């Protein structure tokens, strides 16, 4: 049986009058990449925000690395070892790239070796180090957002649609970088609508619809079965490649 790093059990989340998550059950094995798929509005981003404590679940439990974290504050969840790359990237545009990175190293100092590795992984981080982050392109901001998440070793990284709005060449570069990150055995929970990217990175996959997980299994199984894709998503995911 796989070692489960993150487990959501019957999680419900309300946002104002809306009942967004309606009993999410999800397991993320330690190591590798788990992908969360689903149409717009299925509840993927809300799932990540609920894990981070940015929305408080109204029901259910979230366990991370053996400890229950639902109801804890966002800073406490972050310090437990979860990094978050939001859909809007969450870049501090008034701060320079270097200052964004400095703040992300919450323990104080950046490890020079790790920083060199990140600069190699994402060259714009080095090139634009002293530039305000607001002047970066969309792809460069996404690289900065991921770089912030990995400037310190984390047990789990939540990444929300890193390919959204990016040019194909940037998506390929981002996929390469995430693949290298995966080789470091960092656990990643990736929300993604680009099936090509999801397929090339994912080990396990869960599909959401209407605030629930409607399928969970291996990515290889889903990628090989177009009928399953058709049934789960309402249309072939291959169309989105």
């Amino acid at each position, binding site marked *: 049986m796989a070692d489960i790093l993150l487990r959501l059990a019957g999680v419900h989340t309300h946002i104002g009058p809306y009942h967004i998550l309606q009993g999410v059950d999800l397991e993320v094995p330690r190591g590798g990449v788990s992908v969360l798929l689903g149409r717009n509005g299925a509840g993927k981003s809300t799932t990540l925000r609920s894990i*981070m404590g*940015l929305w408080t679940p109204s029901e259910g439990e979230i366990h991370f690395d053996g400890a229950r974290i639902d109801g804890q*504050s*966002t*800073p406490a969840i*972050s*310090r437990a070892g979860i990094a*978050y790359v*939001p859909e*809007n990237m*969450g870049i*501090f*545009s*008034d*701060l320079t790239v270097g*200052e964004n990175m*400095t*703040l*992300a190293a*919450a323990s104080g100092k950046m490890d020079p070796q790790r920083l060199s590795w990140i600069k*190699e*992984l*994402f*060259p*714009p981080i080095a*090139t*634009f180090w002293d*530039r305000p982050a*607001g002047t970066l392109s969309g*792809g*460069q901001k996404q690289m900065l957002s991921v770089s*912030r998440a990995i400037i310190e070793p984390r047990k789990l990284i939540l990444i929300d649609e890193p390919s959204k709005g990016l040019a194909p*060449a*940037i998506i*390929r*570069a981002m*996929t*390469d*970088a995430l693949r290298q990150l995966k080789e470091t055995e960092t656990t990643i929970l990736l929300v993604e609508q680009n099936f090509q990217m999801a397929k090339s990175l994912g080990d396990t996959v869960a599909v959401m619809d209407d605030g629930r997980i409607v399928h969970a299994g291996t990515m290889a199984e889903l990628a090989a079965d177009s009928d399953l894709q058709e049934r789960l998503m309402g249309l072939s995911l291959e169309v989105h490649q």
Partner: protein
Amino acid sequence: MSSTAIRPKLVAASPAERLKSAAPLLLAPVLAGLGFAAIGDGATWLTLTVAGLAMGLMIFIMASGLTVVFGLMDVINFGHGAFVSVGAFVGFTVLAWLAGWTQSPVVMLNLLAVFLAILASMAVTGGIGLMFERVIVAPVYGHHLKQILVTMGGLIVAQQLIHVIWGPDAIHLSRPPSLQGAVIFGEAAIEKYRLFAVAVGLVLFVGMRHVLRSTRIGLLVRAGVENGEMVEALGYRIRRLFLLVFMAGSALAGLGGVMWGLYQETITAHMGSEIMVLVFVVVIIGGLGSIEGCFIGALLVGLLSNYMAFLAPKVALVSTIALMVGVLMWRPQGLYPVVKAK
């Protein structure tokens, strides 16, 4: 990265972009130039300009805390004026205790007494700020209308408490001898206290810029102004930062109260709420949450008020409002708007 790597390029900003960014910096010198052209007499212009800078920098001291509190915490604090008044009264009390030093002809003793009065005012108003945030502001985070109502209520309570402690009458506050009188430059007479106020304001601005630009806590404040949620997601407890910034903002208002009280030489419980109109004008002109914008806005308001009081006293009162309208027509978010995450 592998073969798919994208080569990043550094592209210099165009002259038009640089001009757009730097344009607000030119406003104060341009206004000073226009003032010189309109006044005609160099000595009068110099006197009015120093008076305008002194007034502007004292308003900046009071407004800087308010703008950071608004930018970081999204709190509209109509009670900010209470800290100005309390600061002035605490300063008056300390200066009265240190009457031997304040009336001494020795410059260092005078300055030390003012320094201790400022320190005590900042400590008291910072402490009151702590209680104000916990008791009055914390329950209404995210509700602007309630914030306006409860902070106005807090202001009224503070004013009444001042009446209870120091009495209802206006109190005369004399400056120490070394801050009285004027320095003569050519034909211009410049009040010593105004030079002192300019020096304090500039030191404070430089210090605040240093803290905000070069320290970790400053980075956190700037990041929190833009996206507090992401600051929390990075592991920082933003509520502690809120409290710290609110206390610092209240302490700065206290400092402003002492400076303004010594400038006016009369203090009342309502002095804070009276100056708040100009403080809000400065904060709005600068762009809510922007220290640099607040600084430029304060200089513009100070200079314009003094020039207009000399040139056309009847329109002096509306000149700052007209300035605000003009700036907002040019830049609807203020001179240096802070980008908020959506």
